[in-house]
């Protein structure tokens, strides 16, 4: 929790600024709507955290999200009967893509930057090849319920997010989390102390694939079918994780901080909208703020090797 403190302070500050501009933002309904909007990115960031802390990258999650949504729409084509089998299929597909990423990275020793980049190309090419350029089919309301609907006052996606967060925190507290961090910090030392580095990393990639599947199910419900639904999500997720103070290269940072980083990024988008930064300039402002935030985060946190070098 201590390591998540800086980013939580930043997040609280941002929420306060939003609340000043829009006083009813902190009302439960508006806050829940915010969390609902942020849920897919937070889930993706949690998945990406596992991969990053183990010392790798996963660039394939954005196109995986698109693939999942397009596949679901094509298979269901607006009919509700097959909703549950298709949901199961999506989860399996996510795990499978993660497994391939992990095996190629660990057993074939391809740098994960390239193996997941290859997966990105393969997935996005395959989607377009299959759909002929424009996604067809539709998601039935039953499927979209998870992304849009709510149980009483609480949206389903918030409940899913809570479950995912609880699962991620438990996993990091358990032996798996410790071995994962050890593998990311120094894989040789970890291997010598009996950690199956390849296996642990492969599981991390599978967790990331699973998180992409869950995020796709929520996003498909929330935003509908399009070929752009996952575009740029891999960079947003990585940015969110780094924003939370997790070191690229592995071995340092907490999953709570990574998820808080995703909330912070989403709060930033909300704030930019609120202050009416024109849609076109938005990426520019976002870029500056991301660099500034990461630079500031690096200054207040212990820097390890970087500090020793200065």
């Amino acid at each position, binding site marked *: 929790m201590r390591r998540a403190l800086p980013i939580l302070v930043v997040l609280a500050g941002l929420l306060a600024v939003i609340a000043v501009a829009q006083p009813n933002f902190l009302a439960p309904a508006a806050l829940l709507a915010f969390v609902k909007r942020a849920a897919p990115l937070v889930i993706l960031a949690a998945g990406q955290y596992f991969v990053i802390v183990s010392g790798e990258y996963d660039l394939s999650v954005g196109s995986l999200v698109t693939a999942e949504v397009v596949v679901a729409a094509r298979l269901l084509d607006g009919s509700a009967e097959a909703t549950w089998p298709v949901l199961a299929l999506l989860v399996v597909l996510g795990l499978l893509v993660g497994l391939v990423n992990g095996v190629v990275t660990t057993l074939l020793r391809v740098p994960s930057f390239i193996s997941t980049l290859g997966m990105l190309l393969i997935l996005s090419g395959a989607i377009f090849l299959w759909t002929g350029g424009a996604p067809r089919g539709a998601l039935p309301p039953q499927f979209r319920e998870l992304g849009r609907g709510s149980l009483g006052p609480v949206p389903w996606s918030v409940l899913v997010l809570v479950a995912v967060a609880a699962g991620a925190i438990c996993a990091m507290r358990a032996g798996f989390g410790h071995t994962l961090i050890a593998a990311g910090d120094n894989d040789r030392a970890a291997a010598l102390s009996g950690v199956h580095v390849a296996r642990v990393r492969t599981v991390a990639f599978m967790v990331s694939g699973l998180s992409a599947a869950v995020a796709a199910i929520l996003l498909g419900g929330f935003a509908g079918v399009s070929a752009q639904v996952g575009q740029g999500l891999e960079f947003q997720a990585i940015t969110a994780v780094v924003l939370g103070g997790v070191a690229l290269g592995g071995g340092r940072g907490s999953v709570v901080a990574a998820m808080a980083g995703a909330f912070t990024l989403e709060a930033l988008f909300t704030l930019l909208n609120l202050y009416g930064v024109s849609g076109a300039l938005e990426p520019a402002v*976002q*870029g500056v703020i*991301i660099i500034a935030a990461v630079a500031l985060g690096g200054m207040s946190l212990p820097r390890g090797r970087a500090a020793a070098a200065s």
Partner: protein
Amino acid sequence: MTQQLDLRRLPAVGSFLRRLSADRPARAVYVALALLIVVGWLLFALDGGRFLSQENIVGIQQRSAALGIVAVGQTLVILAGSLDLSVAYLISLTTLVAAETMGGADAGVPVAVAAVLAVSATAGLVNGLIVTRLRVHAFIATLGVALVIRGVLDDRYDGPAGSVPESFQHLGYDRVGPLPVSALLWAAVAASAWFLLSRTRLGCRIYAVGGDAEVARLSGVRGERVVVAAHVLCSLCAGIAGLLLASRLGAGAPTVGTDGGYDLESIAAVVIGGTALAGGRGGVAGTVGGVLLLAVLDSIFNQLEVDSFAKDVVRGVVLVAALAIHARRRTA
């Protein structure tokens, strides 16, 4: 005095030896390239075309020139242990700067070239300073700069703008004998980068800093300056590629860089060429091989009329397979 001279000569010799050993991974690329050319020749023959026709070879050279120039720059930053994800947007920006400054007039060409080089050098300087002074990981730093450039592009341009005079279009389309001018430009950029890396002190320091920043620091190398210089050179290469693309298109286009996927594809070409992503090992020769490999692959796809989406799939598979084979060789 003589002692000083000796000291100055030592790093050059060291870098030469190091280059010889470090460039060995490049051999694998050329073996793969030769194999691919044989395969391409066979496929072309079956398909009723001629692979080694002048037309096809010129086509390969022209297609690969822009990516090749960017990839040479990318090699420098990757060797220095950094990374540049902002090149694609920078290329778009520089085509616009070039075309708008020229405005269709011959007189504007020198000014435009100077403006493009200034803009790209500034971008590289910003990248480098963010990475070294603010200690932001290069992945995030250059991604952030890419977002900034994208915002400027989105805000100011809706479509193609400016125009390039006919005299400048020679750069993109003319040939000297069988060689396109663009390929000569690429060769010149690659040769200067090779010279820089193997024969100059900066090149030696790039390897040193990329190999181990801490050891380099203890041996008296100012690592920060080296990384900044590498970033500036990389962005200059992107600017040159932007000039080339502007002369081909006849105008500036805000999406030309991202459509070409120059950011990730240049990194892929560098890594296929045997340069380690972590820095310190590799060289320009491998990168040139990597770019040619991708271009030959492309020309085979074109001849066989492979669906453009299927191309992406195959390219992804080839990318991963190439590196898997590399990794095998390294551990064997």
